[in-house]
């Protein structure tokens, strides 16, 4: 035992463990900026990762040429039908939009927050190199105006938020990450304020803190509530697949299928111009 204390390696190991734990603690919380070394390391990967990504996209294009012709025709028909349906839906929604504008004007309401988004398109160039974190790397960074904490969306819905930024790339923490939490409500009833948290699985989310009296059921669409300052309200998060009651009986838990297919994600939009809703700060006080 005493022999161990005389060993230089033992003391070195102990020192390394202590320093590592201190650094781990310091870097566990959200940081304003990553260090110069981290930026340099990350940026050395960007050109190669972008290259692999564009090769992969081109490869998918090439393989599509050799796909079955009848299958492609079927797909075109399906897309045409969907396009017609969406055009019709769009026409009716345009009417609602105009009506909403008129009513808002009459009532002196602000325009919908959604209209204020400044979107920066970005390509996904890499994913998390290990299985413990759910994050992606995009090809937009400080140079393009990306900053820490900016929300990221895709046409499907909410993707996550920017966790750290280097000169030419940014790491986006997905909402499926174990450390992520988003304030959410049920789109239809708008009554329940819950928290959607990631489970480390790209196909599943969990909504917690739902009161026992809330009318939440399978198939309900969940959207961001806007109560967490990071995410604007009204962004699609996913659909409820299962509702259970917690053992204490006071709260319910809902399992949610994310609206975004994170395994097929290729392009995203960083919301660079979002500002919290006016009046939100007053509410918080």
């Amino acid at each position: 035992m005493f022999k161990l204390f005389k060993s230089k390696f033992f003391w070195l190991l102990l020192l390394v463990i202590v320093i590592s734990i201190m650094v781990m603690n310091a870097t566990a919380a959200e940081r304003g900026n990553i260090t110069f070394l981290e930026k340099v390391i990350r940026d050395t990967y960007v050109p190669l990762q972008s290259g692999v990504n564009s090769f992969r996209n081109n490869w998918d294009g090439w393989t599509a040429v050799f796909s079955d012709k009848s299958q492609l025709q079927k797909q075109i028909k399906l897309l045409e039908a969907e396009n017609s349906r969406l055009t019709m839906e769009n026409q009716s929604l345009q009417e609602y939009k105009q009506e909403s504008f008129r009513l808002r004007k009459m009532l002196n309401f602000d325009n919908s927050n959604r209209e204020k988004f400044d979107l920066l398109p970005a390509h996904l160039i890499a994913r998390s190199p290990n299985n413990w974190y759910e994050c992606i790397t995009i090809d937009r960074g400080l140079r393009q105006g990306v900053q820490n904490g900016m929300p990221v969306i895709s046409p499907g819905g909410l993707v996550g938020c920017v966790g750290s930024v280097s000169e030419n790339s940014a790491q986006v923490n997905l909402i499926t990450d174990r450390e992520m939490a988003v304030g959410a409500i049920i789109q239809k009833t708008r009554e329940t304020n819950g928290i959607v948290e990631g489970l480390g699985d790209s196909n599943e989310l969990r909504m917690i803190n739902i009161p026992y009296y809330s009318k939440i059921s399978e198939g309900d669409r969940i959207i961001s509530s806007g109560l967490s300052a990071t995410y604007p309200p009204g962004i699609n998060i996913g659909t409820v697949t299962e509702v259970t009651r917690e053992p204490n009986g006071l709260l319910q838990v809902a399992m949610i299928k994310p609206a975004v297919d994170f395994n097929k994600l290729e392009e995203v939009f960083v919301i660079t111009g979002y500002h919290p809703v006016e009046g939100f700060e007053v509410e918080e006080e």
Partner: protein
Amino acid sequence: MRILVLILLPWLAIFLQSTIFSFYNIKGTTPDLVLVFVTFFALFNTAKKGSGYAFFCGLLEDLYMGRFIGLNALSKGLTAYIVGKVQGNVFKENIFVGVLGVLVATALNSLFLFLISIMVFDVFHIDTGMLHHILYQAVYNIIVAIPLYIWYYNSSSKGVLRTRGE
């Protein structure tokens, strides 16, 4: 040249893990190539050298991720130390040594990650999803370890990774 290759290996491993392997994952799981190389290094060197190299590789991964810096460095360092401690008693010519080493290292590394996370942050909760990830990763690691061990063995006995004086 040997040192350059040893530095490039974890860099390349992170690149492959974040691109090709993550795009073509198995049930959302990617192999841990960094751990595979670290295990091989520990098998062919001493425990002290192995843990030092593993710490460096883990640190590179942590700096790339930008979160919990030191977590992978510490878990991989400790894993490599244990692997390095038993390396003197095994025949490295046998490919099963590499495969078994990677299997044990995957289990140890996951265990250290859990223990450190629970002790330091209390953030990771063991659930079935996580256990599935570990099982899939162990299988994936073994699959990639077979060709890599053959290359690593040849390189360290008569190739670019051979230590000076051998």
